[in-house]
């Protein structure tokens, strides 16, 4: 039994990688379409990112530089674990620096630092089917996608508005890809949806347990579903990051005591640390003055909107206000 511990580069055997790459290529060819693939059991549990890990394992090469984040942070336990896995089975360089990574595997966030051409963002996806909670049957939802029958989703969004006065979906907010497929952006907060739109990076989505892969090739139109009179809006925070003063970034609420004391800090730890290490960097557009600096209304957004030169409709881009 001594040969148990010998595994191929990046764990998966080459046949499996080829099978997954074929699925990825098909996904790229049909943006937003969920491609079934013969997902393998991985040495971490389903739900821990087995889909993302299989996608990463199939595309990674010895020269790649890998970054892994969970909840936007490089140091959450599962991100640490997945990073260690690839360091072990592929012996690749790893980083926490968004800009210098060639592959970024993520769970629930897109980094604040804009992605560039040549980078690949790999999402871990629990439930790839955006219609699943409206229609539990795969046989039905596949038909609905085939017929482009998305009325049910619009009715759901309308009912939200009727009941709550707003669309009550805050994460995994459905998007339409290239005017064709409705896609689940994975459970990222809707704050990150605009970053997907025409991103120069390749975005790949892997759902291991549900055996689906889908993709957004660079510069794909990704439009969050909404209504003319209820345009899509992202979350805004009333206060900047308590550590680096960043505004228009996604914040985590940290509980400080048991009297309701709390503070808001960047969810993207790499972004936050960089800002604190080099407050004068032109990257922050002179907004690194610490907590309370600057007037939020007058402040331009973080560099992300630069990627979104051409919002597809009025609903997009609200977060820049």
């Amino acid at each position, binding site marked *: *039994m001594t040969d148990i511990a010998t595994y191929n580069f990046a764990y998966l055997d080459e046949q499996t990688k080829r099978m997954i790459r074929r699925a990825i290529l098909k996904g790229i060819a049909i943006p937003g379409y969920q491609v079934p693939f013969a997902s393998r*059991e991985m040495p971490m549990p389903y739900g821990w990112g087995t889909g993302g890990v299989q996608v990463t394992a199939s595309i990674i090469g010895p020269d790649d530089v890998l970054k892994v984040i969970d909840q936007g*942070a490089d140091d959450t*336990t599962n991100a640490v*674990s997945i990073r260690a896995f690839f360091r072990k089975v592929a012996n690749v360089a790893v980083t926490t620096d968004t800009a210098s990574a060639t592959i970024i595997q993520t769970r629930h966030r897109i980094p604040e630092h804009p992605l560039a051409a040549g980078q690949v963002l790999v999402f871990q996806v*629990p439930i790839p089917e955006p219609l699943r909670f409206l229609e*539990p*049957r795969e046989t039905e939802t596949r038909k609905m996608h085939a017929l482009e029958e998305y009325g049910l989703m619009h009715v759901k969004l309308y009912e939200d508005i009727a009941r709550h006065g707003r669309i*009550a979906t805050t994460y995994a907010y459905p998007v339409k890809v290239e005017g064709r497929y409705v896609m689940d952006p994975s459970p990222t907060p809707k704050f990150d949806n605009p970053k997907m739109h025409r991103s120069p990076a390749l975005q790949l989505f892997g759902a291991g347990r549900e055996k689906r892969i889908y993709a957004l090739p660079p510069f794909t139109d990704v439009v969050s579903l909404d209504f003319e009179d209820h345009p899509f809006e992202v979350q805004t925070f009333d206060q900047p990051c308590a550590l680096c003063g960043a505004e228009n970034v996604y914040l985590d609420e940290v509980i400080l005591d048991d009297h309701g004391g709390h503070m808001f800090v960047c*969810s993207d730890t790499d972004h936050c640390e960089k800002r604190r290490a080099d407050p004068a960097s032109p990257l922050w557009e002179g907004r690194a003055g610490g907590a309370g600096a600057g007037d939020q209304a007058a402040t331009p957004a973080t560099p992300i909107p630069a990627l979104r030169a051409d919002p597809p409709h009025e609903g997009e881009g609200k977060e820049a206000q």
Partner: protein
Amino acid sequence: MYVAVKGGEAAIANAHRLLADRRRGDRSVPALRLDQIVEQLALGVDRVMSEGSLYDRELAALAVVQARGDLIEAIFLVRAYRTTLPRFGYSNPVDTGAMRVERRVSATYKDLPGGQLLGPTFDYTHRLLDPELAAGADVAEPARRESEAEPMPRVSAILAHEGLIEPDGDMPRDHVAGDITREPLEFPMARDIRLQALSRGDEGFLLALGYSTQRGYARNHPFVGEVRIGEVELELDVPELPFAVPLGSIRVTECQMVNQFKGSAKAPPQFTRGYGLVFGQSERKAMAMALCDRALRASELGEDVVAAAQDEEFVISHADNVQATGFVEHLKLPHYVDFQAELDLVRRMRAEYDARANAGPVDEKREAAE
């Protein structure tokens, strides 16, 4: 004051070290050897082989001890190893009619060719804890007799002669058996694929579903036509050789459930069948599988699909315990980001609610989505 979740790497390493310590337990107690587990916890090992879909007693035993006796965790270990193995071919179908039988009982016939053979069963034991076992008492050798040369045909073959029970059925000549470990599941599925999924499905889940059919949720009047446990030969066709090459033998449990069927537009009145086949010795699993298999044939036989056990997507999508445990347990992974988004939404909605409550009654005729 703000303590970031730093040092994840050290925490993980220390957690693994503590886990290894707890797994080993008191060092003054001798460590378990794999052969002890293989020999003395054989049915646990069988379950791990069956739901892990890998016939290797020693690896299954290793998984059991590594998982501290948590069988689903052990099944997961075996699966994760199995998936890395190269696939060099598919064996010929096993002939369970030629099984070297250790146990064979039929509930439909008092006597039948080959006879009834109780074998190593708990069935008629009195469930009284045995203190002598704890004291390590010697165990007598089993009784032996010469085996009779009489063949032991499958009970389905016996009934078939009258035409009252549905035959095994034929697959088209060019049918290639599916492989759920190499192709994504698609619904609706062929029966060969479905049986594979059931065979590695969770024993507890299938047991509960099978039980539900007996209690009236898709009742189908089952009889155990036969349960048999024993060794079957495995053979592989090698293209270079004109004959099938024997690979060895494996121990399996097979259950043929016979179900009354009043007939429908699609099929005449007859006895229909549900089928269960699992690695090792596990009657409970094989029987539950057979009940579920029969229930899942509802649409094929023109029955109304009214209960969970008849719903293919429901049963097959949720039968795999490695998937189920992963997705249930993943809830303990951080979800700060999504929770934050929901928190924000609830705060806003709550503020509006409070504002409305304070403002007093409003005009009821307003359009909902205004």
